[in-house]
């Protein structure tokens, strides 16, 4: 059985067409995407929850399709009309189910009738992934049973190790596809994304749409976890319940109001560029900061004008340097692959690595398994994981060659 079950039209257009037989009321859709049904009544709030629209036509000719608000329900991806479309006149009407798509599909005649949404686009590229449930079911078929090394395994154990493996793979093997585009407010801080585990990169986007990398402020400032109020002797003050009283962080206030140009030498470069050079050239060995860098070399981590970001663990916020106010930024980050249903999918390029990882974890934690078997699966897991990493690194020889050409290297290929 082929793995791709949708027709080309279902995949690309999100459309399934039925030529109804006389009196036919039930229409079974076969999309990979399940139909979500809120209501057939377009005046109902729930109508917006539908991820599809239904159109009918008596002739099937372009422009003759109209959205059908007839009384219908959806169960098991079957659309069931109370009465046959057009009450059997003509006897073979056309029924179209259109999943919501960015361009609204081609069956609606007005903007209101178009099926706007991104259901179709969410399905694009889905063939490169496997669902976690498929991994577990495949594993139970292929690796567990009489005559196999793992004679029996509880499904809950397999699910546990499959999810743990997906978490581990998400951290260092799978592609990082999570990112948020945000504008930095005047508070210079943004909440950490709901499914955030770690960041990959921060950058602000300039007017050309080009990414400008931001750098961590680790060695410049900090976000103190406790900001204690003190008495005149420096001892923390407690409230009536015996708990320490905390105030706002002065460090953070100073950082927010800091002029970045004083850190990255920009201010002095601008103000004293000619002046400092003049002093230096005249033999006036000045003691001002304008000489830094020129005398001792620049510190690369502070010699940039893009800006800095930090993570305030106490407040759960990303913080940014003051020059980034109102700037557009993009945060690339990784999650653990389990936060949302849409995340729990595994690239086919890492399928074998997932099986090997589950096998090793099952065997390693099991009593009376010979150490040789465990070692074998450990090697298999490592080899499969390495393979997956190489595959997912997406290294293309032509692209490497193109980069190396710019480095004055003579590459034959």
């Amino acid at each position: 059985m082929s793995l791709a079950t949708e027709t080309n039209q279902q995949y690309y257009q999100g459309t399934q067409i039925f030529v109804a037989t006389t009196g036919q009321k039930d229409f079974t859709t076969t999309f990979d995407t399940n139909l979500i049904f809120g209501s057939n009544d377009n005046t109902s709030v729930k109508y917006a929850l539908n991820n599809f629209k239904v159109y009918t036509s008596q002739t099937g000719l372009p422009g003759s399709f109209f959205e059908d608000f007839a009384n219908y329900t959806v169960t098991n991806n079957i659309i069931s009309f109370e009465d046959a479309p057009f009450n059997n006149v003509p006897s073979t009407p056309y029924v179209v189910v259109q999943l919501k798509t960015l361009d609204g599909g081609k069956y609606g005649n007005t903007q209101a009738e178009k099926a706007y949404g991104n259901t179709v686009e969410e399905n694009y590229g889905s063939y490169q992934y496997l669902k976690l449930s498929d991994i577990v079911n495949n594993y139970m078929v292929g690796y567990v049973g009489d005559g196999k090394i793992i004679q029996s395994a509880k499904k809950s154990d397999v699910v546990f190790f499959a999810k743990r493996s997906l978490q581990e793979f998400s951290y260092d093997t799978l592609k990082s596809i999570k990112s948020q585009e945000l504008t930095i407010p005047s508070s210079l801080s943004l909440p950490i994304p709901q499914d955030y585990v770690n960041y990959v990169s921060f950058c602000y986007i300039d007017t050309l749409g080009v990414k400008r990398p931001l750098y961590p402020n680790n060695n410049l400032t900090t976000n103190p976890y406790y900001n204690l109020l003190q008495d005149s002797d420096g001892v923390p003050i407690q409230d009536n319940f015996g708990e320490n009283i905390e105030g706002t962080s002065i460090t953070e206030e100073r950082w927010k109001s800091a002029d970045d140009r004083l850190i990255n030498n920009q201010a002095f470069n601008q103000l004293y560029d000619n002046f400092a050079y003049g002093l230096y050239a005249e033999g006036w060995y000045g003691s001002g900061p304008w000489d830094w860098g020129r005398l001792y070399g620049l510190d690369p981590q502070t010699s940039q004008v893009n800006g800095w970001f930090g993570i305030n663990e106490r407040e759960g916020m990303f913080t940014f340097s003051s020059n980034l106010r109102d700037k557009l930024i993009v945060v690339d980050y990784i999650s653990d692959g389990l936060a949302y249903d849409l995340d729990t999918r595994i690239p086919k390029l890492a399928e074998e690595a997932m099986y090997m990882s589950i096998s090793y974890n099952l065997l390693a934690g099991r009593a009376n398994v010979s150490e040789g078997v465990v070692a074998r699966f450990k090697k298999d897991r490592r080899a499969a994981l390495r393979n997956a990493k190489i595959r997912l690194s997406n290294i293309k020889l032509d692209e490497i060659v193109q980069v190396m050409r710019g480095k004055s290297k003579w590459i034959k290929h």
Partner: protein
Amino acid sequence: MVNVNTVYQTVLYVLNKEQRGYIPPDEFNSLAELVQEEIFQSYFPDGSQLNRQNQNNTQNDTEFFNIFKNLNYKLYPFEQEVEFFYDPTFDCWFNSQNSEYAIQPIYLLGEIISSYSNGVTNTTPAASVSPSIDSITQLVSKKDYEKIIRSKLTAPTQQFPICYQYSSPATTSVSLKVFPLPKALNINCILSPASPRWSFQTGGLGQYIYNPSTSFNFTLDISEQNNLIIGILKYAGVVINDPTIIEVASQEAQKTSVNEKS
């Protein structure tokens, strides 16, 4: 199925051959039920033992001489997919023996399939997500259940539901608590064998005349006919106090058993 009259006539024939005695129908019916139960019960330890060949990769792949497969085949009269019903009072699923399913009591639970249609969604107001999911449900102990639900990684979902056995006050049959709650539950079960009965009418001379309309055959597979006869003869020897019958029948039964398992 093994014809009860064939077995009874054969037993009588062997017993009467040397005027050893006679087994009346009531005694035969009791012995028949006992032996059928004995053979039925032996399938499970024997199956486990024969499965070791599968586990050791020493099983043959022939069409008819795979002993494990043959033994498995003998269970077909008892294997049935049974629908369970939801009891909202005790929030459990139970089998009604009065239904068209499972006329006999359930002996063992096999693969449990939970069906879900209306997925729980996070949308408000809730939309019905229409996939129909038939999921294999893991039967666990209450102890394991308590552990499994406490881990977010293993907490039951519609794709990976779990259940545990529950003694419902509303029924004497087996009940299950299933999580998440499905819309339907079907279980592949092994049912207990029905009691065989050799029923009769009294003839003009006071003799017993077999009445097939009120009799019940053995539920066992036809291949068990010889084992049934030997088993009944063994107990008949006890009843009529004839050691030679017991000895011969026991030796015969043992020979068969050894041959099958070696």
